[in-house]
């Protein structure tokens, strides 16, 4: 039975597992390329410290990667286990990028990560660098295909509904791949990953600098992270996701919700910096506004208009009424009334079928929906404004704070003033969570902001779930949350342990915790596994 409870629990499970997964993914994306940079320097200069850097940060990369793989498995299973109707309805289109991701990207990444760790003594430095590069390339290509799939959920191009197969079918693979929303998302997401990797290396290196440990190692790591991080954060901000917000109705609605833009204002609209959005009265209290800013950011022009929520609801209501006609015709077609007139009539209105399906939440028989139900469904087309409004602002604030940090870090490092600024170094250590806060709130903006759709304007989320009992979901959510939390605790423990230990973890005999003892066998290393 599909009840509201089943739908809500399925969404909760998806959100939890995706947010967990997204703790690890950005770091993998970013660290992989930092490893390539460090190892490239090693191959060019043959200075041992760069090899040590690649191996040490690689060790932390491995700890993170293990959970990325673990939590990623759930994502693949989950479309089938919990979103069976979704899988049937859009698998023809959505499945392809996922499968190609496996063939083109995940194989590459996963095959070479083994050699990255185990191949140091068996490969020449150049070959090993090639392995590291292919691993990084694999992880980035992986992000590309996943975001092509996700971009299609936001802006479903290159596909048509077929009444015969009762599903969406691909009409153009090129349209799917070159979906502008997917392109924007890819650039924004991988650049955010590079920022995460850079902040990770920057913060931990700042910690060593503060402790005055392994300074040559820490300085070089810091320098690479600050330069790579500055370039990356600039890309994230300049190539922000919002440049895709004028593409497709779902993105337009998301933008209006994120900005709590209730009315359509004459262009260019002003940007609400802060305020308390109220969805009942459709007003924003205590709003602080910056003139022109929203129009400029969202439309990249002075004359582009940002459609307000009230006008969107009016437009959506018309499409819901159209969708009811489409649903009626579809029922006839499925019952075998496949004459040319019916087919032609259906083809003319089928783009609004998804809007008709929104009524399924209120009535099994969409055709007989009451006026009140139509109004409710029209309201449903707008996602909850408050969480989106705040998530977006938290993300942007984190982004600009990181811009400041990377700019200062780069400047102080270039002018060699860094180590005389302990308070700044301390601030960097504490800034470590910022990229994760930005990434997780960014996920909320992108995916919560897509509601009520799982596939924009095509398939409502509440129709997408599997036919399950609520009890099934309570069990799986309970088990997933406990297991994930346990794994996360273990992961964090190992991360902290090895980050504190620093390059001494490599047992080269060249670093802080090893220098004190000349005898290599008696490890003075705190709580370090001797057999590693």
């Amino acid at each position: 039975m599909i009840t509201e409870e089943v739908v809500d629990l399925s969404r909760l499970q998806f959100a939890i597992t995706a947010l967990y997964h997204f703790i690890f993914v950005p770091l993998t994306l970013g660290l992989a390329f930092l490893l390539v940079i460090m190892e490239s320097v090693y191959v060019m200069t043959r200075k041992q410290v760069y090899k040590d850097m690649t191996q040490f940060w690689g060790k932390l990369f491995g700890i993170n990667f293990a959970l990325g793989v673990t939590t990623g498995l759930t994502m693949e299973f989950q479309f089938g286990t919990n979103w069976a109707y979704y899988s049937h309805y859009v698998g023809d289109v959505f499945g392809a990028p996922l499968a190609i991701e496996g063939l083109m990207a995940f194989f590459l990444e996963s095959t070479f990560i083994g050699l990255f760790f185990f191949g140091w003594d068996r490969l020449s430095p150049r070959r090993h660098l090639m392995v590291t590069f292919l691993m990084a390339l694999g992880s980035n290509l992986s992000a590309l295909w996943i975001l092509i799939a996700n971009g299609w959920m936001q802006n479903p191009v290159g596909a048509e509904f077929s009444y015969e197969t009762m599903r969406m079918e691909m009409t153009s693979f090129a349209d799917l791949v070159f979906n502008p929303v997917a392109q924007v998302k890819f650039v924004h997401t991988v650049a955010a990953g590079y920022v995460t990797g850079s902040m990770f290396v920057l913060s931990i290196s700042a910690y060593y600098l503060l402790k005055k440990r392994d300074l040559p190692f820490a300085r070089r790591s810091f320098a690479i992270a600050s330069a790579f991080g500055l370039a990356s954060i600039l890309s994230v901000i300049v190539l922000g996701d919002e440049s895709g917000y004028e593409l497709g109705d779902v993105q337009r609605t998301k933008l209006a919700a994120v900005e709590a833009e209730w009315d359509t204002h004459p262009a260019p609209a002003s940007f609400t910096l802060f305020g308390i959005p109220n969805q009942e009265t459709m007003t924003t209290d205590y709003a602080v506004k910056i003139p022109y800013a929203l129009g400029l950011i969202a439309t990249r022009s002075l004359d582009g208009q940002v459609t307000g929520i009230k006008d969107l609801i009016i437009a959506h209501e018309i499409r819901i009424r159209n969708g009811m006609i489409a649903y009626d015709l579809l029922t006839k077609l499925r019952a075998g009334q496949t004459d040319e007139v019916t087919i032609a009539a259906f083809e003319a209105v089928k783009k609004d079928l998804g809007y008709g399906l929104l009524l399924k939440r209120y009535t099994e028989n969409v055709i007989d929906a009451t006026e009140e139900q139509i109004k409710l469904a029209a309201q449903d087309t707008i996602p909850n404004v408050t969480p989106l409004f705040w998530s977006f602002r938290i993300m942007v604030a984190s982004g600009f704070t990181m811009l400041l940090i990377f700019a200062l870090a780069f400047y102080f490092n270039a002018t060699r003033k860094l180590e005389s600024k302990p308070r700044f170094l301390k601030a960097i250590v504490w800034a470590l969570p910022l990229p994760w806060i930005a990434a997780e709130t960014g996920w909320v903006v992108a995916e919560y902001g897509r509601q009520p759709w799982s596939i924009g304007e095509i398939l409502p989320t509440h129709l997408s779930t599997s036919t399950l009992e609520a009890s099934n979901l309570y069990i799986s959510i309970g088990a997933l949350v406990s297991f994930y939390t346990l794994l996360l605790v273990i992961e964090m423990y190992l991360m902290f342990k090895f980050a504190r230990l620093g390059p001494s973890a490599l047992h080269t005999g060249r670093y802080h915790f090893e220098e004190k003892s000349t005898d290599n066998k008696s490890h003075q290393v705190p709580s370090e596994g001797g057999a590693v």
Partner: protein
Amino acid sequence: MIMDYETLKLVWWILVGVLLVGFMITDGFDMGACVLLPFLGKTDTERRIIINTVGPHWDGNQVWFITAGGALFAAWPAVYAVAFSSFYFAMMLVLFALFFRPVGFDYRSKIADPRWRSTWDWGLFISGSVPALVFGVAFGNLLLGVDFYLDDFLRPNYTGSFFGLFHPFALLCGVVSLSMLTAHGAIWLQMRADQPIADRAGRAGIIALIIMLAAFAGAGLMLLQGMPGLHIDMMPAKDAMPNPLSKQVSIVDGAWLSNYATYSWMIAAPVAGFVMGLLTLLLVKARRSGLAFACNSLTMTAIISTAAFSLFPFVLPSMTSPNSSLTLWDAASSHLTLNVMFIAAMIFVPIILLYTLWTYRVMWGRVTSKQIEGNPLSY
């Protein structure tokens, strides 16, 4: 389009099989090695030798499984939807078992505490044994029929229960797959691990192969007893737009054997299962582990083919609503999607095979205790 729709549908039935076989051959040996880990490794060093034989490869191997899942999603969306949601708890069981792999491999060596390590050893044991068992049970349930129906809008509804999956026949199939992968892991260790593990692995491999052959014979006998299968009375053209509900299917005793009468060459699959299985056994005994590994790969191919041939053209039968059953003709994706995916597979599978073989060549050789202790990055 490279091929007509009908041919492409058939090609994708073969390709899904190829990915499954690829998964069994590659991921199969590391799962098998994990099953044997707590029993063949008496000391920590011995266990580390076992883990390090698969250390550089388990992650790449696992992608065969992930890609098979992705290909199922793309090529047979209805099968993916029905199978994963119907087998909800069985899938969750596999998923949770698989969770132990990445962390077990990567985190075990990071702390020396014996309790820590032994916990992960059993975690790895679960990660190998549970999926191996459940896959077989799932295949058994395909032959028994999955209790689902499709409504008018093709929404899958499951009417069975989790515990209903553990029918004796399904359990027997579970034993086949578990022993098959365990044997594969044993042969791998005989080939790649240092003594005394290699000899112990050889003995374990022989036991596993005997169990596998007996269970395979037992499952075959149950089928020969006239287990009910499905027969298509009427269906649309094979190149029609896929719509599972447009066919007429009836339940007929012994129908899963009818293909062997229609296409007599299919008998080669079960026969090869026995012949290659026995040959593998002899090769393991003679310590020709390289040949035994290749031979066992063929055994597994033959056993999987036997299941697929028996069901053909069904891929996901329902006994409670036979018309809802999914076949390779009516569960497939559109012509364009199958075509795009076929091109992608033709380009990437050969490339994957090339670089995978290269990584195996780089890491080739017996893993010894000396090697592990000299390398701070080993597991």
